[in-house]
């Protein structure tokens, strides 16, 4: 727990360094989204802290939603995720085998998950250009694919079901051929 938080903060530090205006000037090609992605990450960080403080006050049930992960073998794990926490973070705190090579800094596609219910998928904010850039490279992309680090728990998402794609099969049989989206 301590270690994962430590690394995450490390990732944030690096991200903020890079996203500093002087180093990565904003342009017409990546306009507002940019801010949104930083905003989302900050939001995630602060609100998960808030959720923790609240839960200490005894409002635990109100502050968490039920999320089910379905792994590559089809086995299900039900976890409780505090409002404001990303699915990547929640998966790691619950020992769910979801990769997270860039630790939530939107630089890889390894935390790719498939939202199993279209209705739930539609409740999510649209992916940013940056998330779409990474989803381009995800294995076994589907209509309801998202990055786990970009899905933030909120009360409307109660009962969310997420599948971890069984990419090995795709890889072995077809090589890398993302499904048309």
């Amino acid at each position, binding site marked *: 727990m301590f270690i994962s938080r430590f*690394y995450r903060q*490390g*990732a944030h530090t*690096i*991200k903020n*360094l*890079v996203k500093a205006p*002087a*180093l*990565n*000037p*904003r*342009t*017409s*090609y*990546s306009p507002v989204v940019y801010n949104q992605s930083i905003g989302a990450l900050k939001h995630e960080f602060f609100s998960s802290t808030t959720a923790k403080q609240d839960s200490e006050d005894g409002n635990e049930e109100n502050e968490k939603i039920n999320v089910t992960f379905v792994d590559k073998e089809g086995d299900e794990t039900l976890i409780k995720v505090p409002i404001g926490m990303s699915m990547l973070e929640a998966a790691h705190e619950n020992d769910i085998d979801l*990769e997270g*090579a*860039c*630790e939530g*800094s*939107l*630089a*890889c*596609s*390894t935390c790719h998950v498939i939202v199993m219910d279209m209705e739930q998928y539609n409740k999510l904010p649209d992916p940013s*250009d*940056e998330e*779409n*850039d*990474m989803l*381009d*490279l995800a*294995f076994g*992309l589907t209509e309801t694919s998202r990055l786990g680090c970009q899905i933030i728990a909120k009360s409307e998402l109660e009962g969310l079901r997420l599948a971890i794609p069984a*990419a*090995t099969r*795709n*890889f*072995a049989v077809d*090589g*890398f051929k*993302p499904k*048309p*989206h």
Partner: protein
Amino acid sequence: MASFLKLRWISKSFSTLSSTPLRICVVGSGPAGFYTAEKLLKAHGSVDVDIIDRLPTPFGLVRSGVAPDHPETKIVINQFSRVAQNERCSFIGNVSVGSSITLPELREMYNGVVLAYGAESDRSLGIPGEELADIYAAREFVWWYNGHPDCRNLAPDLKSSDTAVILGQGNVALDVARILLRPTAELARTDIASHALAALEESTIRKVYLVGRRGPVQAACTAKELREILGIKDLVIHIKQADLVTTPADEIEMKNNRIRRRVYELLSKAVTAGHASVPGQRELHFVFFHKPDRFLESDDRSGRLGSVRLEKTTLKGDESMKQVAVGTGVYKDISCGLALKSIGYKSVAIDGLPFDNYKGIVPNLGGRVLANASLGDMQYETGLYVCGWLKRGPTGIIATNLYCAEETIACVSEDINKGVLSSKSVKPGRKGMLELLDSRNTRVVPFDAWEKIDLEEKRLGNLKNKPREKLATREELLKIAGK
């Protein structure tokens, strides 16, 4: 021969021990090597894994391939470091298979060997003039700015001309173009090698041409890298409107490929943005439908590059087959002082290893090495596996290796379950290898020695307001490692 006998002896002396683990050696410590090790350790509680690398530093292309201005992509190093710190895993650097130790020796020392040493050479164009000075493989240029010891002294001339031509339009091509064009004040805050930063600060290159044989629909880059280069401050983008006209075959390609469609959209937006040219401003020219015909020598500088001759192409093929570029016999020259060939990497063979020279990979089925390059012959090399670029060719991203390693490890697991690999056949493993290397005066760099290098690089970087100042020679690296 003497050393071989010695090996036999070491082998024998170890066979008296009981309950020894299965010993696997992974060659190469890039993403393919580390993902392989991680998956092996996870799948088998009684397997020990040693990862060896020819460099004193781990992480392969995460250190020497990923661009310095992509620090988020390098975060995966945290995960790899945790693997290296696993008590059943060891990183052993500065060990080169082929010179420090041979592959047959390694296979004698371990129950299994997984080769994951990537692709450290380059495809060539095979056109006249390719031997002129000022022409480099993009890989060499990347290694140079990333502080790889093998390209420390590359010293590309960035001051004799205002123009560089990059052949290829993949992500590596975009990376090198971005490094040439990005304001150096921005690069100064990355972990770019200081020798490269100094050269780039004095660079006179203002115009970069990115040349592709085919059109904007077929450009091999991905949206992230394209978005990034199009967004460089004060950079004027040149794309010919006429090149963006699509054919029905192009439309089908885009319909079937999300990346192609998104890349095309970004390029289309860039052309409509319509920048006015200002003298002295940096320019990026996308040159579609042209292939390199020859390199021409400079008129006034003997042996040096003067220009690149390109032939206009047209696409042949329809929706049912891949569209290919064919020459039209129409040529144009671009004067330049630097040319970078970004047309693909190539793996290098080592002695005692089956190798498919045509494909540039080790012949394999799902990661099991085939004894013969022809796939019709299904004879496997017992206990020999391959992963990453050496297995499937030099394409894909870091995460591709995740799935690639899963596939290779499935083969290893199957062989363990079948008893093909068994710890009953006791191997000397790490201890035996270290003794042999010691007898040959090879100084190895274990992970805790790399951590000293890591700390020193970060300390030096801190002095310059950089995340890291890479030590770029073997001597410096070994000196700090030995402290």
